């Protein structure tokens, strides 16, 4: 069981909050498709004998590639890897790229079976604040087309905590999501990452800053409403109906192995994590000697810390038994000792050997994780 991630860095314009590696130029489009196919072939041994169960086109905006180009890449993967027949194959997309024809073409001619659409909000002033390409009309139309074409496994992104997003508008965004009966939602609190446009604009007081209280309020509404509509909050920012959990992303959260292709893509084989160069030109001209930007071999405590930080965010939680079996009693003792105050303060729920965040605890996941960390 392993996943493949493909980073398609093209974007028509950069969203103000985005800190991923993206490029606005299509100059290297052909070179890039060639290069990523080459990378897929040259790194075929990275995951050993692991079978592939998920493939994920992320970005950037993978929907800027044509269906033919996506298929070329998928064919290369199928030629090199052992891909399970019912694998989850996801395409991230932006509403302005995917018209009815594109969607129909995709449905009919490609094995892609899951669509993730970056809606973010159904209101124009929010989309403007975020510097998205599309407008609210386009957002709705695109969901309708996707459903019409017959993509059942569908997810959308919604961002909350935007200064322009009132409580009523947030409730309205959620209501539209429920009304479309979409089985999966990724919902993020707007975060100001350093060195993004948003960071600069807020510091220069051109844009309103994020109000923490409002974000918390939106988060509470989100938790309450999704629960009421039978979605499981299986990861802090992810909500799904039964059977529609993201298999690919679950690999990240459950410590599974994955290989990432494309500039800045990360790979992990259970022992080390590495990432590719973050520059399109460098990537297209790279070979096995200069593709990797950095590699880290994880120590035992680093592996433990990663287990804590990822598993704590999920509904599967941290399992003390797992810690004992994998890391030994030094770690399980440390875990037990450090987690008790959080149980007492109602941030952690203990069921048998499994510890999960309560709704109140979800807002403090980072602080709790770092307290539980093991230091060398």
């Amino acid at each position, binding site marked *: 069981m392993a996943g493949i991630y493909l980073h398609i860095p093209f974007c028509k314009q950069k969203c103000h909050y985005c800190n991923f590696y993206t490029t606005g130029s299509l100059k290297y489009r052909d070179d890039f498709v060639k290069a990523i196919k080459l990378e897929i072939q040259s790194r075929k041994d990275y995951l050993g004998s692991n079978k592939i169960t998920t493939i994920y086109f992320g970005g950037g905006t993978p929907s800027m590639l044509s269906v033919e180009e996506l298929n070329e890449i998928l064919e290369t993967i199928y030629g090199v890897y052992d891909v399970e027949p019912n694998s989850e194959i996801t395409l991230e997309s932006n509403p302005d790229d995917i018209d009815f024809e594109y969607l129909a073409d995709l449905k009919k001619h490609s094995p892609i079976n899951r669509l993730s659409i970056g809606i973010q909000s159904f209101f124009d002033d929010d989309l403007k604040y975020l510097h998205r390409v599309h407008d609210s009309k386009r957002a709705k139309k695109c969901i309708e087309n996707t459903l019409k074409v017959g993509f059942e496994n569908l997810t959308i992104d919604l961002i909350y905590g935007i200064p322009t997003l009132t409580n009523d508008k947030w409730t309205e965004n959620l209501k539209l999501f429920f009304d479309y009966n979409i089985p999966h939602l990724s919902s*993020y609190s707007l975060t100001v990452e350093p060195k993004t446009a948003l960071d600069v604009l807020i510091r220069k007081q051109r844009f309103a800053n994020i109000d923490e209280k409002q974000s918390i309020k939106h988060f509470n509404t989100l938790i309450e409403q999704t629960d009421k509509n039978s979605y499981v909050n299986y990861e802090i920012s992810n909500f799904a109906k039964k059977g529609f959990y993201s298999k690919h992303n679950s690999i990240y959260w459950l410590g599974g192995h*994955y290989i990432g292709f494309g500039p800045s893509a990360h790979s992990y084989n259970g022992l080390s994590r590495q990432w590719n160069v973050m520059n399109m030109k460098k990537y297209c001209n790279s070979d096995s000697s200069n593709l990797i930007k950095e590699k880290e071999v994880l120590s035992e405590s680093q592996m433990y*810390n990663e287990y804590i930080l990822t598993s704590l965010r999920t509904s599967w939680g941290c399992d003390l038994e797992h810690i004992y079996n994998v890391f030994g009693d030094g770690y399980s003792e440390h875990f037990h000792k450090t987690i008790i105050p959080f149980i007492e303060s109602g941030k952690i729920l203990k069921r048998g050997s499994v510890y999960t965040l309560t709704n109140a605890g979800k807002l403090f996941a980072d602080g709790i994780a770092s307290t539980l960390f093991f230091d060398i």
Partner: protein
Amino acid sequence: MADRLLEYTGTVSERDLQAQVLDDMDIERERGITIKSHAIQMDYVHNDEKFVLNLIDTPGHVDFSYEVSRSIAACEGALLIVDATQGIQAQTISNLYLAIENDLEIIPVLNKMDLDNAMPDEVKDQIVDLIGCDYEDIIEASGKTGYGVDVILDSIIHKVPYPKGDTNEPLQALIFDSVFNSFRGIIAYFRIFNGEIKKGDKVKFVNTEREYEANEIGVLRLDQESRDILRTGDVGYIISGIKTSKEVKVGDTITHLNNPCISAISGFEDVKPMVFAGIYPTDPDDYEELRASIEKLQLNDASLTYEPESSMALGFGFRCGFLGLLHMEIIQERLDREFNMNVITTMPNVSYNVVTNKNEIIEVHNPSGLPEHKYIDHIEEPYIKSQIITQSDFIGPIIKLCLDKRGELKNQVYLSTSRVELTVDMPLGEIVFDFYDKLKSISKGYASFDYHISGYKPAKLIKLDILLNGESVDALSTLIHFDNAYDFGKRICSKLKELIPRQQYDIAIQAAIGAKIIARETIKAVRKDVTAKCYGGDITRKRKLLEKQKKGKKRMRQVGNVEVPQQAFLVVLKLND
């Protein structure tokens, strides 16, 4: 400049020459300052005649003025080195007066003449005004290029007298410095005024009244070179199996056990530290290690004093006494660099005399050591007489600063049309906080400052407590003048609000005099601490971020239910940041 003299006389070969040869501590080289005195012997041939010159390079900072005074006492002449770009500094004057008092031959040198912004005419005027020499006597030189070094050496030969004294008299030698060597113990540096010393002699240190055998004596070249005998006028070292630096006091006199000199060399003082602060291990488990580190440091630096103390907030640590703030900073840095000790230093304070109802005088080094209010008749605090030299443009704001610090202007003298010397009496307790930084900033770095302790005066001092969530934090208590307490309490609270990170609960910061709260701030609780996204590439980044956070938490101390970072304990020193 010392480097150039060593180079020109061939004492150090070019191969061995690195910048600041004599300053062997990293801190000295990095900061470009001299902390310890350094002595070295040079040979110089002048008109086919060989001369032996002994050079002592001394610190300039006021914290070390006693050491400097003993070095001056060991010499016949002094190079008055004045920066041609800066002019006479306050500390130059006090060291100069010391030299004149000791009848030293003064050779004025105008340094940094290679720089474009040198002002030779103006600075020469200042020097002539100060020491009354002729303009031609001032030697233009550059420690950077070596310009003028030959003239300096010739001038030393011509002007500085041969050492006086009588080799046939009983031994009388002045200790002007000591160093610690991990193999040989304490090595004392001395200058012989009368008599001679031979290897193996039984000697006595007059003031400490301790007796030793001179296991090894010698002269101070670039390395120590042992000799069988040293005579009047010689500068040398003695190794006699001394284990701790406390036994060797700078200013003490060495004489023979059997044939002692009649009197000790005058000027000896038991230097008392004036600034005190608590030093605590960041990790309470490191207490014993900290003790061992401070002990070792003291071997090197007898002016550092320490005694165990405990704090409700910080656990076990030491109350350390320092010569001044620079000294304190250096000790803290050396603990970190040389011993890898991560420490928390508490608010510095001066030494107070508390006069009780029964008219006893108690010396208090720590606000929390203050007797109960009802037993106190009054408190006296140390006062200094200070000299400030500044360009006249800044005189207004500087006087205001001194008055804010409860200073009293005693005198104001124009050294030239544009330079003024102010004499101000001030409480020492006011300058240990932020006086020097403020002085430098309002004078754009030009004002210089020098002081000496002038005595004790009664003052309206009260103890200001800081409370975190209602709990008094003893390590943050200060003794402060009543008139300044309200303003000071307010500033401390608001600075602590910046320095203490938000935590799980609201934190109330209060300043109190007794039971009366005089200032308050609140740090709002963290309401949200979670990153939105966590996918493949984010895991490494996020793990590193949280690991860093965890490290930061480790450097904090739990006080009640509040995590307080190291730097918050030094809040008073950060009020102007």
